[in-house]
């Protein structure tokens, strides 16, 4: 079962992503346990985790935040496809970085991306889900970590 101290890996990964990719740190709020279904933003990038641990990691963000993030990355393509690409890449990067602490047996999938439609999040038995709030510039997003 995901322990609260293990969340630090994902908090650090999120912090690193915004510092390096967006060149502007994000403010990370206190993680809290997810009860019920979380509110999804416009775009969600989801990684399935298998191997030593099971579950999902997903990053969900509003279009306005992703647009600014793309601008900070010197991108000029703000299309729907770019938004989908970006949320998938954020989820992939933070999940992949988690292998630094979780090890090689923390197997991650390629990202599944949702926009508009509500994703089906299957929580394996014994998984605990935490929400890591992300505040960047005037925008808010979430990283949700649900792992055994």
């Amino acid at each position, binding site marked *: 079962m995901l322990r609260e101290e293990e969340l630090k890996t994902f908090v650090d990964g999120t912090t690193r992503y915004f510092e390096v990719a967006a060149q502007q740190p994000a403010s990370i709020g206190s993680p809290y346990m997810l009860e019920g279904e979380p509110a999804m933003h416009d775009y969600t990038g989801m990684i399935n985790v298998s191997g030593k641990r099971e579950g999902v990691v997903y990053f969900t963000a509003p279009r306005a935040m992703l647009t600014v993030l793309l601008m900070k990355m010197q991108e000029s393509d703000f299309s729907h496809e770019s938004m989908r*690409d970006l949320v998938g890449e954020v989820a*992939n*990067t933070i999940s*992949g970085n988690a292998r630094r602490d979780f090890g*090689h047996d923390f197997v991650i*999938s390629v990202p599944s991306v949702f926009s508009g439609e509500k994703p089906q999040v299957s929580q394996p038995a014994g998984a605990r889900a935490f929400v890591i709030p992300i505040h960047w510039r005037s925008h808010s997003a979430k990283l949700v970590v649900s792992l055994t």
Partner: protein
Amino acid sequence: MDTAQDTGARRTVKLLIVDDSNIVRRRIERSQQFDDLQVVGTAANGLEALELARRTDPDLVTMDLTMPQMDGIECITQLVQMKPEVRILVISALADKATAVEAMERGANGFLNKPFTDRQLNEAIAELMY
């Protein structure tokens, strides 16, 4: 006849960029700062990369690992069999040491973790170019 080596001039290094993210592919292409580096193609998965490598004969490849259809580790293995002299820089989010070791054992020459700065990218490319 002068060769590039005789005159001290550097020949153009052909670069193939492999990543399933369009944003990352464009970022690498935009951020590399070498006059003697020519991007000859970009691919979104290992299968596309092998096909492009056959057609473009790259000297250097930047290679993501987590990709659909054919992942980077399998692509590195086949690419090295096809073109043993190719230099491969893995650019991946997978941050555990075992993954880096496996990539190097299959034939990669360098490893850069995502997310990366422009400076880190250019230093990693320079190490494999010169």
